[in-house]
Structure formats: structure tokens, C-alpha cells
């Protein structure tokens, strides 16, 4: 084991997960490939969604992959940063909207 949890080189080894469970890995990668094809949304649009989600789930591998992919597909730096802000707004909003739950509880128990 490395002495840290994340290795940039591990991204290219993603496919190796099939060594321990081939059937499920094959199903996953087939599904993954299908998801990112041009369909009702273009592959380019999906790339930007993936970039935002990658930041929301804070996956360094996904951020690496989709920063490259989105830029290569033609998005500008400003567009990509706006996508990250969308992720940030949703995550921030998700925290804040729970403030209503906090308020409900305080109102319930307070005099």
C-alpha cells in the first residue's frame, strides 16, 4: 500500500477492478459507456454535468478525468468554473436548507 490514499496513476487502473469481479465490472463499464454517449443530451453536455458532479462528490479521479474531458470537448475555463459553482450552490444550498429543519426543532422546543 502507498502511504497516502489517492494516487493519480490509479485513474488509469480503473479497469483493473474487473480482476476481482469481472461480471459486475463489465456491466458497470458497459453502462458507463452508454451513459456518456450522445443521446438526448450530447456527450459534451454530459461531460460538463460530470465535471460538476465530480466536484460535488469530491472525487479527485473524476475531477482529473472530467476537467480534461470538458476542456478537450471545447468548454472554456469560465464555463467550467460556472459548472463548479453550480455544484457549490447545490451543496451549499443543501446545507442551508437544513437550517429550516433546525429552525423547526428550535421552535418546537423553545418557549
Amino acid at each position, binding site marked *: 500500500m502507498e502511504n497516502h490514499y489517492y494516487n493519480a496513476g490509479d485513474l488509469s487502473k480503473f479497469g483493473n477492478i474487473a480482476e476481482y469481479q469481472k461480471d459486475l465490472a463489465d456491466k458497470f463499464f458497459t453502462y458507463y459507456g452508454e451513459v456518456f454517449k450522445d443521446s438526448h443530451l450530447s456527450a459534451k453536455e454530459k461531460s460538463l454535468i460530470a465535471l460538476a458532479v465530480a466536484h460535488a462528490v469530491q472525487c479527485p479521479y473524476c475531477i482529473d478525468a472530467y476537467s480534461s474531458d470538458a476542456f478537450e470537448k*471545447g468548454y472554456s475555463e469560465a464555463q467550467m468554473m460556472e459548472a463548479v459553482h453550480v455544484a457549490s450552490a447545490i451543496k451549499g444550498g443543501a446545507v442551508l436548507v437544513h437550517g429550516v429543519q433546525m429552525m423547526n426543532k428550535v421552535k418546537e422546543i423553545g418557549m
Partner: protein
Amino acid sequence: MIKSLKVLQHPLADSENQLEVLGNSLLNQQPTFKQKLEQNGVHPLRASGIDVLQLNLGKMCNQTCKHCHVDAGPDRKEIMDRSTMQWCLDVLQKTDINIVDLTGGAPELNPDFRWFVEQIRNLGKQVMVRCNLTIILANKRFHDLPDFFKKHQVEVVSSLPGFTQDRTDRQRGEGVFENSIKALQMLNQVGYGQIGSGLILNLVYNPAGAFLPPSQTALEKEYKIELSSRYGIVFNQLFAITNMPISRYLDYLLSSGNYNRYMDKLISAFNPASVQNLMCRNTLSVGWDGFLYDCDFNQMLDLKVAERRVQHISEFNLDILKNRATVVNQHCFGCTAGEGSSCGGSLLN
């Protein structure tokens, strides 16, 4: 003004140094292009004929693009002379080679450019010009190029690495996008790219960075929508071309720390399906000084055709050249990555 590597006396201006860098990648245990061909049963790679004569009319250019594999620029003086052009015309007259692809530098800067186009057309051959667009606006004497191209039914192939100013200027220089758009509008005005005109205007995309081009089909669709809606521009086809790890682009890769990653990317994306359509199989490249190469990239690396008997256009022999074994090196991975790449774009479309 940005200077060429040659004028800067940069080590990478020497093709031997470039080949040494490409060879050093073998130290990283990367396979050779030759090995890849052998693994796929296609070594030696042979020409299947000569359909296209691609001529470099000179290295002089009004632009100094960061990725230029020719190391072209305003400070380059190499120009094809009329006697070399005459040898090319003799070859065209004697053979069935039907397509002439004129490149540079900016080929229009060659003082004999118009004469040469007229002579080729008089032979009934198709002419394709790799026009950088901005040359049309560079000087009053070039403003009539769209009409000249139209008169001689020249196919125009022009680089536009993005439909936004940012990407284009980053690669090709400040102000290039704005002038490119104006030039495209001038070409459209005389009929280029318009349905039914028969005047072909194709655009070239190449990545402004250390990555491979995206899908040519998807990109063409997007270019057509964006250029039409933003600027009212129409064109025929978009060619997505991979940047070759040579000359100024090699310098960029090395100085930005992207070289190893880019080579890994090219090699891991090797696509055997692209090999049969490689442009070296149906094209012969002629340098400004008349020497012969399997492609424009080999020309810049000074890798002449392997047939020592016919290394100059004055020695042209179709029987010897049409089935020649082509010279390959590590840069060839640029033509076989992903969808494959050629001067006509993806090899799989």
C-alpha cells in the same frame, strides 16, 4: 513578433534533436511505432499509390502559431522557386496524380503562387490550398484571393481551432480570430461553402493544448451551429487533426511538462483501424527545395523517402515511389491515435 525556433537558434530547430527527444521516449519503455505495426501485421507500411502531391511552397508565414510543425513565420525565408515548381508540373503532366495540396507557411506568400495555381489548373488537376485565412486581410494585394480561388475552382482548407476568440488567439496569435472570421465571410460572399456553389471551404480544428481532438462528427455539428448563429458563416466539412509532437508543438509539450503524458496518450490510443487510411499511403510530400517525403511531418523531421534513387522531384519515378515502404518514427503515433488523423481530418469517417 514571435520568432521561429530557427531564428532563435533553439535546439529543437534541428530535426536531429527532435528525433533524439522522440527516441528518448523509448527509455520510458514505450513501444516503438514500428513494433505496433509489426504487432498488427502491417510492417513495413507501404504506399498504395500516389493520389495527392502535397507541396510546401515555403516556410514564410504572416502568423507564428504556437503549435506549428513547420516552424513557419515571417522570419522564415525558404521559398519554392519556379524551377522546382516546373519539375512538379512535369510530374503532374506525366502522371494520373489528380490532387495537388498546396501548403506552407502561407503558400500565398510565394511570389509564384498564382502562376503555379494557373499552371496546375491548366493541366486539369484539382488544387487544394491550405489558407490560414488572415493572409487574405494581411495586405491589400491579397484581398482578391477569394475571387482568385473562385476563378480557379480552388478548394480552400483553413485552420480555425475554435469558434471563440479565446481558443483561436491562444494558439494562433492575438487578433487572428477576428481576422479569420472576416476572411471566412469574404469567402462565403463569393460562394465558398454555399450549397450548390461547388466551391469547397473546409475548416481544420486542432487542439489548443496537450490533448487529442474530440469526435470530428460532433465537433463539425457544433461548429456549423455556432459559426452560423454567431457570424452567419457556412462551410463544408470540419477536419479534426491531432497535433504532432514535432517542432514548435514539441517545444510546447516539453516546456509545459506535458510531453510524456501526451506521448502516453497517443500510444495508448493507437488504433489499428486507422493504419490502412494513413495519408502517407496515398500522398507524396514535396519540400520547398524539391526533396521528397512520405508526409509533411516527415518533411519537417528531414526524413526523406527511403528510396535513395528518387529523393528529389527532379528524379521522380512513379513505378518506384507508388509502392514504396514509408519511413516511420515515434511521431507517427499522432496519426494513429483515436479516430486517426491526416491533413483531411479523421481517418475513420
